[in-house]
């Protein structure tokens, strides 16, 4: 293996790491505009991260090493996920290390670690958040896998580069099953990334929190890593959605630097549109009661299954 693919891989990961907080900032901006507030600057998440990294970390006196390790693990899994998902180009060496099923597994690893860390301090809010996070997780994971199954059945492969190349290949085909899967995917994305209507990223009302309740005890660099990791997670989900449902514009296996440039521009456009849509969804929807979450995610699951049945019945 030569160095060029590795450099490409590294460049893509760095791009993901730097764009992820900006994406969060962009959603916050869109939301503020929609709500007639004056918007925070786009770079605000980056500034927050820098501030947090400089602060002294405050730890609960009986926090175990697991608690201190978890932010690094979260960040590590999300960076790896970013290396696997084709955000700009499909010919990434690391993409063959783990396919889409392993990607779901990586997300689950992160979820289990953050839940365990939340239980580590032994406060009421921490365990409450952990329990809710795991509940949302076990409901969302099958739905996400079923969404992937739709794409797998069309492409005959679980490796993301093959899936994307198959879906993006001309001629332009609209797969009816992917329409169902797409809606299901958006629902899973909202649930898994602690967005409305399952969780409110801006909440400070303790009893309604999921993600915020879990990270209550984190501060400074640990909190920075946790927040960066969740920004990366949202970014990763968005890029997964692009790869499966709007795969056009990605640089394919044998394209030059020009195609990569086009791909980056396409990515920015897609991110801009996706951020606006997310902000709109969050502005018009209210948070569900926690025990309505199963219904929401069961619907996502059924939509994905419906997509599967459509694919199998129509043979398309």
């Amino acid at each position, binding site marked *: 293996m030569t160095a060029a693919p590795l450099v490409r891989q590294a460049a893509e990961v760095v791009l993901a790491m730097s764009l992820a907080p900006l994406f969060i900032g962009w959603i916050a901006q869109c939301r503020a505009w929609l709500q007639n507030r004056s918007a925070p600057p786009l770079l605000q998440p980056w500034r927050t991260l820098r501030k947090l990294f400089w602060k002294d970390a405050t730890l609960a006196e009986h926090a175990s090493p697991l608690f201190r390790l978890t932010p690094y693990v979260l960040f590590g899994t999300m960076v790896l996920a970013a290396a696997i998902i084709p955000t700009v180009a499909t010919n990434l060496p690391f993409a063959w290390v783990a396919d889409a099923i392993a990607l779901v597994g990586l997300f689950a690893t992160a979820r289990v670690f953050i839940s365990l860390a939340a*239980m580590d301090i032994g*406060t009421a809010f921490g365990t409450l958040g952990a329990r809710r996070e795991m509940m949302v997780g076990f409901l969302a994971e099958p739905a996400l896998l079923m969404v992937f199954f739709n794409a797998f059945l069309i492409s005959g*492969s679980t490796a993301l580069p093959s899936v994307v190349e198959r879906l993006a290949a001309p001629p332009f085909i609209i797969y009816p099953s992917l329409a169902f899967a797409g809606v299901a995917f958006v629902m899973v994305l909202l649930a898994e990334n602690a967005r409305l209507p399952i969780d409110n990223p801006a909440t400070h009302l303790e009893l309604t929190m999921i993600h915020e309740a879990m990270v209550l005890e984190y501060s400074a660099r640990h909190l920075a890593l946790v927040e960066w990791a969740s920004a990366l997670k949202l970014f990763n989900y968005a890029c997964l959605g692009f790869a499966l449902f709007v795969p056009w514009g990605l640089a394919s296996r044998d394209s030059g630097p020009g195609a990569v440039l086009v791909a980056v521009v396409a990515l920015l456009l897609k991110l801009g549109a996706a951020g606006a849509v997310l902000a709109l969804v969050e502005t018009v929807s209210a948070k569900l009661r926690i025990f309505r979450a199963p219904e929401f995610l069961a619907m996502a699951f059924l939509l994905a299954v419906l997509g599967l049945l459509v694919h199998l019945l129509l043979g398309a």
Partner: protein
Amino acid sequence: MEMVAAPSLTVLLALVAGWMTLGLAGLIRPHHVGLVGRALFPLGALIGLGVALVGLAALRPDRLAEQLVLPLGLPDLPFHLRLDALSGFFLLLQGAVGAGISIFAAGYFRAGEGTAPGLLCLQYHVFLASMVLVVVADDAYFFMVAWETMALSSYFLVTTQHRIPEIRRAGFLYLLIAHVGAISILLSFGVLQGGSWKFTFDAMRGPTLSPAWATVAFLLALVGFGAKAGLVPLHVWLPEAHPAAPSPVSALMSGLMLKTAVYGVLRVSFDLLHSGLWWWGALVLAIGLFTGLFGVVFAAVQTDMKRLLAYSSIENVGLIFSGIGLAILFRAFDLRLFAALALSAALIHTLNHAFFKSLLFLATGSVLHATGERNLGKLGGLIRRMPWVAVLALVGTLAIAGLPPLNGFVSEWLLLQAFLSTPRIPQPFVNMLIPLGAAALALTAALSAYVMVKFYGVIFLGQPREPALMKAHDAGRLQRLGLVWLAAGCVVLGAFPQLALTATAGITRAAVGDAVRMGSWAFVAPLAPGQASYSGVLLWVGILGVVAVTFVLVRRLYHGRVRRTAPWDCGDPWQTPRMQDTAEGFGQPIRHIFGSAFRIDRELPSPWDSAPRYRVQIEDRIWRALYLPLGRGVQRLADAVAVIQGGRLAIYLLYAFLTLIALLVFVL
């Protein structure tokens, strides 16, 4: 003469004899813990390694099956032994995992707990030896002898604490269902001999049964082995017997003994019956998926840590059987590569489960010894008192939750790949329904992560729920060694799944006529490289690398200063360990979502209670729907029969006389 022809089997028999000797040696001074713990159990662990090596040797691709006839047993019924790849795989599992459990047991058993350590040592090694003999038996007679020895020795091990009535009851239930299963297996062998009246497996391989008789034999075997494996609805003994047994015995039963049932089903359906109908596979798949979901949902609401693990064993057995079902299904349609994939997935999950479930059962043993508590509601915060056990149990927890890059993920990944191949089945509707099975599998896997977070979080994390926990001590050296061995197995099998995949190649070639593609040293690509690939080792390297680099960069670019204070908890200064979620609390969403699966008996306090008490009891519906009516029916039948049992000798003589007359009339 035969001795020379079968070197591996001879070595194996010598190893088994070694185990028996160790067991008997325990009887010399049955109350001497030093002798039993420091000498006999570690030696047993060494013998276990030997068994694993014999199994490994039998898995080499160029190896032919070895056969041996022992002039033991009844006249004209000598014991037949055979060692092929399938037996070798299970020997490897039993030896490697058994060695870890034995070395842990060396530091675990103490004097003054029920059965004397020496006697326990005998039962333990007889149990191990009988499991080895089950997988090399080559005739129905010897198989049943080994099978029953296994059941009886494990019964005595389960009832180690025989002074406690619940444990005696659990043991009885276990023995009962074990024997219902054994009868079913015996009947299955009776059908399999197909009129030849020869009970060697060689003779059974020969004749081709009519589909109807083959179905009867298969279903009987499924019931018989399913009772041992814990398939729903024959699972009821499992959550009773596993917690009752001492932890190393629970580990043996869950890690090894359940796997002999998997072996039995594989032996009957892929070796003795060389072809199958497709709906057998669909049936096994459906039962397996249902068992998996059932087990994990019940595991989520348990409050006893060993019961939780027992239900989780039911779940994993369900996953293994769903793989077997898929393999039978694919084989019936002659989709050999996919059948090989599903069978490999089932076998690897069997191996993986043996490692991580034994690890977790042993960890609960250490916790039990350190705290005297099995109730999750009275544990907590042990990661600070028992760091060794906590870290090693974390490996097992992540593995069983099916998370990459550990081994539990690999088998689930393979199983999902097999599910993805089902649309190729040329049977309408079946090929559409089965992808939905993948949804059940995904739900089961996701729920098992929930269960394991509950298990680990409540035991090891948080604050100690009882003051006594502050005095808990970490496991001793031998216990740690056992745990490290099993945890290392989980890590290695997760990083290099191709090792396990290579080991299954010979088995799948013999069973379904193909084997999955092997990929390279770093990658697993079971079907085709572009289609699906996974590399455990590179994932390890990636995660550890990113974590290390991030750690160093954060320290270098910023700083590593830390201040320790009281927990924040939104500024609430009144925090007690009682405010944490209990096991019931953590299981509450499951009770809410899957409410109809349970029979919940709940007592809520009234708002005006000065000393409120909350009580909830969760029962298995199957117990009331199936077993109690069955028990009542048997009782009624027995009562009806008891009418003719007057208790007077004259009446019994009359019966004998009448029978004689009836027989004479019949004969004449």
